[in-house]
């Protein structure tokens, strides 16, 4: 168990950053799929 508050704070920030990254990655994939999908089904 790490009791260093700075290390814990860094760990918390990185965990939050990973969540941010998942959201942004999802948005990127969604844009790609939307474009391809609209081209296929929008015709």
């Amino acid at each position: 168990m790490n009791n260093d508050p700075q290390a814990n704070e860094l760990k918390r920030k990185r965990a939050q950053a990973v969540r941010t990254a998942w959201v942004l990655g999802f948005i990127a994939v969604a844009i790609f799929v939307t474009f391809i999908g609209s081209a296929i089904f929008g015709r």
Partner: protein
Amino acid sequence: MSTETTYTDVNETHDEHDHGDHKPTGFLDRWLFTTNHKDIGTLYLIFSLTMFMIGGAMAMVIRAELFMPGLQLVEPDFFNQMTTMHALVMVFGAVMPAWVGFANWLVPMMIGAPDMALPRMNNWSFWILPFAFSMLLSTLFMDSGGPAAGWTMYPPLVLQTGTSFAFVVFAIHMMGVSSIMGSINIIATIFNMRAPGMTLLRMPMFVWTWLITAFLLIAVMPVLAGAVTMLLTDHFFATNFFNAAGGGDPVMFQHIFWFFGHPEVYILILPAFGVISEILPTFSRKPLFGYSSMVYATATIAFLSFIVWAHHMFTVGMPLQGELFFMYATMLISVPTGVKVFNWISTMWQGSMTFETPMLFAIGFVVLFTIGGLSGLMLAITAADFQYHDTYFVVAHFHYVLVPGSIFALMAATYYWLPKFTGNMYSEKWGKIHFWLSAISVNVLFFPQHYLGLAGMPRRIPDYSPQFADFNMISSIGGFAFGATQLIFVGVVWHCVFRSKVKATAMVWENPRGLEWTLESPPAYHSFTTPPEVTHNMVRHAE
């Protein structure tokens, strides 16, 4: 000149007790498996410089062929491959990775973070690129040759590319994945890793411009990926997205491409705005004029970049209302851009200016980028664009934006921060020689192209009518001079990194502001392991 005592305090808090200089010792561990933001930034910058040289060599082939009318040096198809590859290499291989390299070096140091938020993804983002570009460049050696339809890849022409087209598409996919991962990392870092007290409106302009650029990248790179995927299936899997004979619509590709392509232009230039906003205040010895208006102007430019794409395709036959909308929307961009230019001028106004090499390149940027902006306004006028479209006027316009724009800003950034990165000063004498030769030759190279375009010379042709001969010869001479001048840049950088005996101080310049200047030069391998407490007087615009 006084220095801020606050900086000394910050330095002591994180560097005195832990020098954090635990570099990996093996070559592969240090460079192939690195997760350190400074090492990855260095890799990006070396890669970018290499691509700049390769793309520059292609430009020399183009200008040599255009030196005089007639076909002298290369076959027309190879000429078209050169124009296409020159653009792809310079846009995706030189300028974008260079900005990502600077972002890697600077964003964590500017916001007081120990590293990027996602260091292993950072490594992956970089190491995809050499493979992507090896694949792209390898098409030049294939039987079917490289892509030759221009970087815009308009169908149906691009669908005539041979089997190498699959390699081109896959390379673009990989570049896109790299860019998206890099952007996600930058946004995640800025949103989550800022030091205490580093509020959003205290962030340096370079960080702000990169934050907005990263959002642009995430929004438009998937669109490019979608477009080239549809080209791929049209080429190899008998779909008809863009094939009119099969019921497809080639103009739809142009809409999709430029929905990506216009924001892409801002992706190349917004970080340059950030760099100039860092450099001008330092050498004017004044705070940046209108910091918050700079932030809002950047965001406005980014928003507008999504609703102007069709000004690239006025001549396809749009309804008049559509043409008017895209014309006025495009002209609207000059408002936030004008805010920026006037803020830069106001920053310099009555400042105690000195003209070190970074400042020279920054001033060169402001003057010459503005010329590119004004010719952009001319192109935005729908009625006039029917004359300018697909001529050398367009080539002159976007090269003014990208070369004395983005590239000059990259040069300015290199001279400004290289002493911080390496701990060595570069040769000021050779830096200034590099600037003046570049500034003169870049105008000799591109200014005559305005006249060529107005006189009707089309772009992307290896041969031309004799009436265009004089200006083409002048342009080529400027091109050779500009190309040769960049060898000086390589020499100055090489000397600074490996040979310079003049050590840089922590501040490097007189009273620069920003957290990166609180670190030693070069900074420790692991900097800001203890986050600094950012106070009001540590940010330039707070004065």
